[in-house]
């Protein structure tokens, strides 16, 4: 009975170890793929998706990392292929300026409103 317990414990530890090592190897890929939009399954990141497109993308990212490319280079590479839409972090340009500036404007506007209310009282 005691032996059986030890064996079971060992098996459990072994299973955990394996899980841990699996997570370790693909951590960098996870980091990058979380910032990528899965283009054929909208609303999901490449990290979340199990579609063929996303699975291939993860392999490709791993390959690029193995080649010694850094995050920035991989994003640039994918942007050149699929356009800016693939990254979740929009650049500041003519098309996205409103996206970046609008919250600021709203914040300032809201601040003015609050200040006015307070000063009236």
């Amino acid at each position: 009975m005691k032996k059986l317990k030890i064996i079971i414990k060992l098996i459990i530890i072994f299973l955990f170890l394996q899980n841990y090592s699996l997570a370790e190897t693909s951590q960098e890929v996870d980091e990058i793929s979380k910032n990528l939009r899965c283009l054929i399954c909208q609303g999901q990141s490449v990290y979340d998706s199990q579609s063929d497109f996303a699975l291939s993308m993860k392999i490709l990212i791993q390959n690029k990392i193995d080649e010694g490319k850094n995050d920035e280079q991989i994003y640039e590479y994918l942007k050149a292929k699929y356009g800016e839409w693939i990254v979740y972090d929009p650049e500041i340009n003519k098309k996205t300026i409103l996206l970046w500036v609008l919250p600021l404007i709203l914040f300032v506007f809201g601040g003015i409103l609050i200040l006015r209310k307070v000063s009236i009282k």
Partner: protein
Amino acid sequence: MSKNFKLISIVLFTLFSFFILLKGLDKSNIYSPEIEQRKINFNFKAKYLFSEEEVFINELLNNDGMSLINIWASWCLPCRDEHAYLLNLKSLNKLNIIGINYKDDEKNAKQFLSELGNPYTNIITDPKGINSIELGAFGVPESYLIDNKSKLILQKHIGPLDDKAFAKLIKIIQ
């Protein structure tokens, strides 16, 4: 007066939102990127379907004319539909048609071709789907018309070829 104004602005805002959303319903949600990089780096290796040799895609695009790169798989139903168009294009004898066999079992792929005919001049395999990403592809089927000399994409078609896409291709080829 101010009550009326509030009511009117709420109604107007609701109507405004309603029509915006209504219009949004019609909009296609298939996203296709404007190809920024019309020139593709074809400098990657892939294995032939019918032999064990590997080849650079560059070497397959070496004559003066145009090439059609078609991504397909035997498990892909729309690929069956578009196959007739590919055979048709082959019979024109003007295009170098290159097939990329996407994430497929080689046996099934060969059976697919013996069943429906083989329109391809060369077929390379893409078991992991990486080569297709090099081309900027989304999945299967997908076709690229390429000018061999400049290596520029002349026409890109996502999804199975249909009458409209076929007519477009023919127009460019001739």
